[in-house]
């Protein structure tokens, strides 16, 4: 895949990759953009090379997941080693426009419910319901076996339904 084709693929998938990056970093848009920059840099530099064994989207999602995990470890280590007082305070992310308050409220309810799930359950549900992947494809992205992904999917879905029911948002 040449650079032009690569750029075209990245541009086509940009919004979807951003959504997945958001899911991988606790829904922080600044972190998600930083992850995407690192991922694009990896792809452009050839550190991440698509070998065609899976679909381009599955491969990109896997790279994003690993990059997010790597950045999470790095920031955790940095927090251990460095004085946290010297860190700059990040400004609050701007709130989305409130054109549809009811829709925002429902999205927030879902975000809160997702945040209470285990990380693997969040990921598999995000991949299946948000990105329309199959559970098998989700397993490939998550780097787990299909059986394990199915277990996370079933338990996560049941727990999410309970949480959303408790929130009175049915």
């Amino acid at each position, binding site marked *: 895949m040449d650079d032009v084709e690569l750029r075209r693929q990245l541009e086509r998938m940009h919004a979807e990759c951003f959504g997945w990056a958001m899911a991988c970093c606790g829904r922080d848009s600044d972190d998600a953009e930083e992850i995407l920059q690192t991922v694009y*840099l990896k792809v452009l530099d050839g550190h991440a090379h698509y070998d065609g064994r899976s679909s381009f989207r599955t491969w990109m999602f896997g790279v994003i997941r690993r990059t997010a995990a790597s950045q999470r470890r790095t920031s955790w280590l940095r927090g251990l080693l460095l004085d946290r007082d010297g860190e700059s305070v990040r400004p609050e992310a701007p709130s989305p426009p409130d054109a549809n308050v009811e829709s925002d409220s429902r999205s927030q309810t879902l975000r809160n419910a997702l945040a209470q799930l285990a990380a693997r359950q969040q990921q598999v549900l995000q991949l299946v319901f948000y990105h329309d992947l199959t559970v098998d494809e989700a397993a490939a992205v998550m780097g787990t076996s299909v059986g394990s992904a199915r277990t996370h999917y079933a338990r996560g879905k049941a727990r999410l339904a309970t949480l959303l029911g408790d929130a009175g948002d049915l």
Partner: protein
Amino acid sequence: MMDDSELRQRFERLRNADRDRVPAFVQTYERARARQPLRVTPRIRPFVIGAAAAVLLVTVWMARARSFSHSETTPAIATWRAPTDVLLDTPGSELLGAMPALGASVLDKMIPTHSMRGT
């Protein structure tokens, strides 16, 4: 129990809400291109780890070899005597250590002979 279609609707709304926050592709792409290339440490890291492991192995091997080697001051096992052996040298032990001859008395050994007396 909530069915899949309802969950899909909820995730669809979440996706629409997220879409407003997506940065422009050109902005992210150009920022990525403007960033420094990834550090080369991941490439050299295996070599550094290998070299450190080799140094550690050699150090441990040398330390073990030194601890097992016989120094010149170490006595051989045949000539070694326990420090408490002197406690076994009781008075009169030389009388009990030899077989007495017939017709001889143990006191003979204690009485000096003429030749000994002359010296």
